[in-house]
């Protein structure tokens, strides 16, 4: 075990932990908005795949990464819109419609990949940018200030989301709609509009989460490349108690443990690899048992809203 606690290993765990947390952060922060307004979107994984594919395809064809990113956001928006129509306007059971959206995104991204690309190709993605001055700090500079644009963006998103949710009128409306849509409606808040906005915003961020894989972390597209990350992202929202900072904590914990289990294997510590791969999941459950009660779920989560009910 001692070989894990050397400086290079710890630096490595922190560095890859931060990188790994990036897609989870985008997706989970987006989902936080949706859930805060009362919509559980279980289709995040499918949206991420559509974002990953669209971003990659556009970036490859135009050789412009930012256009790719924009395309990923647009694809995410459209998927979010679809989810909003189904779950808000048509008041469908949210858990199930999420599973449907997921299948749809998984299938469509694979289909498009086959028809347009045919096979796996890679591109040169977003490169690390060392932040002047801060990047020169020994050790810390490498861990925190030598990442690509999308990693910085993910971490900046946390305080921004926190601000929007807690300090703006829009955030107030979102929370009101998620707690008691009937009351919010009486006060003149357009419940439907708010839910459309948050679900679409969640879609955009999930699309960017996908692009952070295909344009920055892995730099290629392969079918089902998220392999269930979207579900973990939804889990992190619960974990974080529907607060952006809590989500950040959850994403970092999950990613650090994941980075740690890989180091455990690399260092040849005698644990079966399958047990090592389980570690992040077991730890998340354990962590949840300690934070479960504290978290207060939005009262109207998963409940569709219809005027004149009650």
């Amino acid at each position: 075990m001692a070989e894990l606690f050397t400086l290079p290993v710890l630096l490595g765990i922190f560095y890859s932990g931060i990188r790994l947390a990036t897609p989870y952060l985008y997706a989970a922060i987006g989902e936080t908005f949706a859930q805060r307004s009362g919509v559980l979107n279980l289709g995040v994984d499918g949206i991420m795949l559509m974002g990953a594919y669209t971003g990659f395809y556009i970036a490859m064809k135009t050789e412009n990464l930012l256009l790719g990113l924009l395309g990923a956001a647009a694809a995410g928006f459209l998927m979010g819109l679809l989810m909003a129509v189904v779950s808000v306007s048509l008041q469908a059971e949210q858990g199930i419609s999420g599973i449907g959206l997921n299948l749809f995104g998984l299938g469509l991204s694979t289909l498009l990949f086959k028809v347009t690309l045919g096979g796996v190709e890679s591109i040169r993605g977003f490169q690390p940018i060392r932040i002047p001055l801060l990047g020169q700090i020994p050790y810390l500079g490498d861990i925190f200030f030598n990442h690509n644009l999308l990693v910085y963006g993910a971490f900046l998103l946390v305080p921004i989301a926190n601000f929007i949710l807690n300090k703006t009128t829009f955030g107030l409306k979102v929370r009101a709609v998620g707690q008691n849509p009937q009351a919010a409606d009486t006060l003149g808040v357009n419940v439907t509009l708010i839910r459309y906005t948050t679900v679409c915003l969640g879609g955009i961020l999930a699309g960017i989460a996908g692009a952070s894989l295909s344009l920055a972390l892995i730099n290629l597209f392969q079918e089902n490349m998220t392999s269930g990350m979207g579900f973990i992202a939804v889990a992190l929202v619960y974990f974080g108690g529907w607060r952006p900072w809590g989500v950040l904590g959850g994403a970092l914990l999950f990613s650090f443990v994941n980075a740690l289990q890989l180091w455990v294997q690399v260092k040849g510590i005698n644990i079966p690899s399958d047990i090592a791969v389980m570690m992040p999941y077991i730890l998340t459950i354990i962590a949840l048992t300690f934070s479960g009660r504290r978290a207060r779920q939005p009262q109207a989560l998963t409940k569709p809203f219809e005027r004149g009910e009650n």
Partner: protein
Amino acid sequence: MKKIVVRIALLVALVSLLLSACAQPAAPTQPAQEEKPFRVAVVMPSTITDLAFSQSFFEALKKVQEEEGGPSKFEIAYSEGMFNVPDAAAAIRDYASQGYDLVIAHGSQYGTSLSQIAPDFPETAFAWGTSLDTFQAQGINNVYAYQAESQEGGYVLGTIAALMSKTGVLGVCGPVNAGDAKLFVDGFVAGAKNAKPDIQVNVTFTGSFSDVSLMASAAETHIAAGADMLTGSSQSVVGAIGVAKDKGAYWFGTQWEQTPVGPETVVATQVFDWTIVIRDMVKSVRAGVLGGKAYTLTFKNGGLKLVYNDKVPVPDDIKAKAQETIDGIMNGTIDPLSGPKQ
């Protein structure tokens, strides 16, 4: 409301009418040919473009098709992405009942199902891999089996990687420690250790054949731990190759050429060439022998090939050493799972 119901009902009626009108699939009206084409069907767990196990087999089938004179003489049908075994079993049964001459179950997880299906179609030839079990012990005589001795190429690639490494650390990105992947990884480690006894080989497994992102993280961790030469197996390694390319590490591939993912990253690949297996099976089936033989791919029979990537220079002395190793494996002086025999 009533209107909507009526409209939907009309729509349904229309659709079901259309569907029933075409429920009888058009009978194949192929013009009578002098010679019936040889028909092969293959069921595969991943896709025909996976740059790995499934693609290696499909490309070999296409090559044999070309040799045989194209689709009119040699027909190929395939089902990809059949990770669900009962679905695969249904596909195998379906192909057999459609009268395909040779039905191939290209995944070791299909074995049990195949052993149940094959006796029901004694006139059809079946094949499966990777395995060496033709079920003859169970009294089944119409099944071929095939396996790649991946450890051979693993051993050679391990030798090259160890000799090329400047840091003295190699990284292995494995999927699940079983089957073909285990053979390859064990061979790679043995080859590296024998070429350079003080080499360090770090091995990780992601527990999945398809988790591209975890594979990418594994590669990243290996590089952070000092590895400059990486290898791995399964269709998920593209994630690792992408990372290696980004960080300037080198990659050693297996199963199928992965050069498109990293044109200047992949050093060499152990390519599975299944054509020798397919050719021989086709020949035997035509001669009326429907199974009972197990094939292996080895360097010796030409089923395994070491393919260098021209874009990545490998020093001549290392290439010579690699060839020497291949020769050693071929003449039996080297055991690819342990090393030179005393």
